[in-house]
């Protein structure tokens, strides 16, 4: 018998196909709860979840908090502006302090790749990676997989293109790993300055030009251009970026009729995607947001309550 048997969720890397299916199936059940009048179940009563954000992120943080509250867990959230974290305390010191509070789960967002792995070595609590540097953002990938499965009925065999700053995107990395594991065909696209070295080793095809890359695709995933990275070295200007790499109505003419458009948010309207396309009929961007809560409920449930036993996969 299959059992979900993980203490932490550090990356998509560690999950098997069975694990991913289990998470998505569990999320399906939680979608139902979210549609009730009283959106709360006592499943994690008495459990505590600490979220700990070294980087600002309203959306991911809110989504986790909502998920924990709907499961009746106690929540505590700390952010980088809280005093102890700006006084030069090391991550390990902080980890030991958090551990002293004996939480069941620690959710970490950090600007350094690998920070959750370091944390996990020093705490007994389960650690959920809510985004580490340019490495992974597994809960985003899971909610993306969940959204695709709901919209398309399957993941295996679908053709997906991811467009934008692949090199610096943890979302892209986690999505690529997850999609490949689930049997989707993945193409990446964007300016060559933003395609990582040896990207083929991730099992993807590279088509630099979005106009060509999006043809015959079932899913288009747009990535956010981080405005702070706009230093004139990766690309000359936002104007030129939107002209050659942004998704607009014109470009959409070359896409399949039933394509779905995704974006991890927040959107820079008029840069990587125009407003009419983001709000248009193919867009599932808002579904991603609501699915995010269900996926995070599923993860908290599986990591804390789902019982860790023998894993046969």
């Amino acid at each position, binding site marked *: 018998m299959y059992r979900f048997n993980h203490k932490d969720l550090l990356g998509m890397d560690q999950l098997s196909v069975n694990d991913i299916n289990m998470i998505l199936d569990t999320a399906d059940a939680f979608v139902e709860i979210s549609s009730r009048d009283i959106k709360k179940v006592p499943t994690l009563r008495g459990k505590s979840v600490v979220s700990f954000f070294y980087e600002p992120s309203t959306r991911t943080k809110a989504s986790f908090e909502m998920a924990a509250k709907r499961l009746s867990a106690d929540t505590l959230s700390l952010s980088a502006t809280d005093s102890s974290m700006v006084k030069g305390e*090391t991550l390990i010191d902080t980890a030991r302090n958090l551990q002293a509070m004996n939480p069941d789960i620690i959710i970490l967002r*950090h600007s350094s790749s*690998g920070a959750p792995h*370091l944390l996990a070595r020093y705490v007994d609590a389960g650690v959920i990676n809510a985004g580490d*540097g340019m490495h992974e953002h597994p809960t985003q990938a899971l909610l993306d997989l969940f959204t695709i499965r709901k919209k398309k009925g399957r993941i295996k065999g679908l053709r997906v293109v991811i467009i934008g700053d692949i090199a610096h995107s943890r979302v892209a990395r986690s999505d690529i790993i997850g999609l490949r594991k689930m049997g989707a065909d993945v193409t990446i696209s964007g300016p060559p300055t933003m395609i990582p*070295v040896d990207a083929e080793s991730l099992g993807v095809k590279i088509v630099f030009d979005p106009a060509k890359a999006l043809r015959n695709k079932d899913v288009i995933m747009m990535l956010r251009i981080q405005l702070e990275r706009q230093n004139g070295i990766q690309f000359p200007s936002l104007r030129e970026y939107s002209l050659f790499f942004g998704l607009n109505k014109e470009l959409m003419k070359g896409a399949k009729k039933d394509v779905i458009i995704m974006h991890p948010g927040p959107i820079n309207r008029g840069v990587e995607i125009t407003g009419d396309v983001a709000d248009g009929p193919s867009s599932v961007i808002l579904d991603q947001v609501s699915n995010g809560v269900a996926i995070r409920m599923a993860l908290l449930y599986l990591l804390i309550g789902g019982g860790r036993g023998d894993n046969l996969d």
Partner: protein
Amino acid sequence: MITWIKGGEVIDPRSGTKRTLDIVIQKGKIERLLPPGNFSPPGDIDLKIIDASGMIVTPGLIDMHVHFREPGEEYKETIATGSQAAAAGGFTAVACMPNTNPINDSRSVTDFILERARKANLTRVYPVAAISRGLRSESLTEFGDLKQAGAVAVSDDGRPVTSSELMRRAIEYARFFNLPVISHCEDLDLSNKGVMHEGTISTRLGLRGVPAASEEIMVVREILLAKLTGYPVHIAHVSTEGSVTFIKQAKEEGVPVTAETAPHYFSLDHTALTDFDTNAKMRPPLREPKDVEAIKRGLSQGVIDVIATDHAPHSPLEKDVEFDNAAFGIIGLETALSLTLALVRDGVIDLPTAIAKLSYNPASILSVKGGFIEEGKEADLTVIDLNSEYVVQKEGFKSKSHNSPFIGWKMTGRAILTMVGGRIVWESNEQRNPDS
């Protein structure tokens, strides 16, 4: 007093000697080298016999690239603890790089280092002085004064000379004083805050990559400057296939260039980083399997002359942190010999070649004493047990730091006795006070 090293197989790469010989040492010098059974000690003298049967005896090993953190970061390593680590690793001499605090860019710092080395009184310590004041790539240090104080070479290791004009003048000026110039080859712009090798693993881990070209661009610059000036440049810690190719070609054209690599570049590749292990983070970074193979080829073809450790101690303060924030560098003095002997067992190089790269070659490049075994010369010797098996343990290091990616590795072959000027500075399983 006479010390009699009995029955060991003497390997002396310079003379090509590889046979069982007794070594008789008196007053710090090798008095006699003779076949077994030919020495009868005078009855009226203090005699110490070292049974070296089944062992090999080599010239004292010389590490031409270490970072002892004194002055400035004594909590990581001092000249005394670094010398202990060196002795335990079979090294009788080390050359220490100038990126201390203060930087070794003046006579007073060179004097200080030599004074500390005298106090430690274990291995020989040769200071390498900075090329530029404050390692700032702006103006030259006083090469002449530094040489008189005891510096054996100049290098801006730790922060490469960014100005090609300054590097050219440094090489020209060094020629007047016969000072070797050692270059840490890295184009810092191209490294662009990278923390590991740029390739499949950096792409996978989302860590900033340092492309191989970042090293190779500078290797080519130094080759061109050596050609321009006609004076040798020594390339430190070669890590890429491209560097090996360029150096090979330069040597074939007769350009005066020499090169070293470190044991980690032929023992590990970038897959060692997959768990974000900060003990595998160094500069240049661990590269790809094809680079590891090229380094081995470079060693066997004589493109790479020297094996040096780039021993770079750091404390948990610098290493038990997020990967991006962790310091670059690993310790190496106590694992270098074993890792090199593994190359010999694998048939990459033969034993005399390995010993040459660890003794005679660095001695010739730096023009320091030692590197060979000859009657009348200082008794700097290393006795090696090729068959001793052990597991590298964190607690086992004599170094003050233990930032090594080789912890837990099973090794075969190690130094069991290290002798500097006739004095035993280290003997297997115990640290001896050299004066007792």
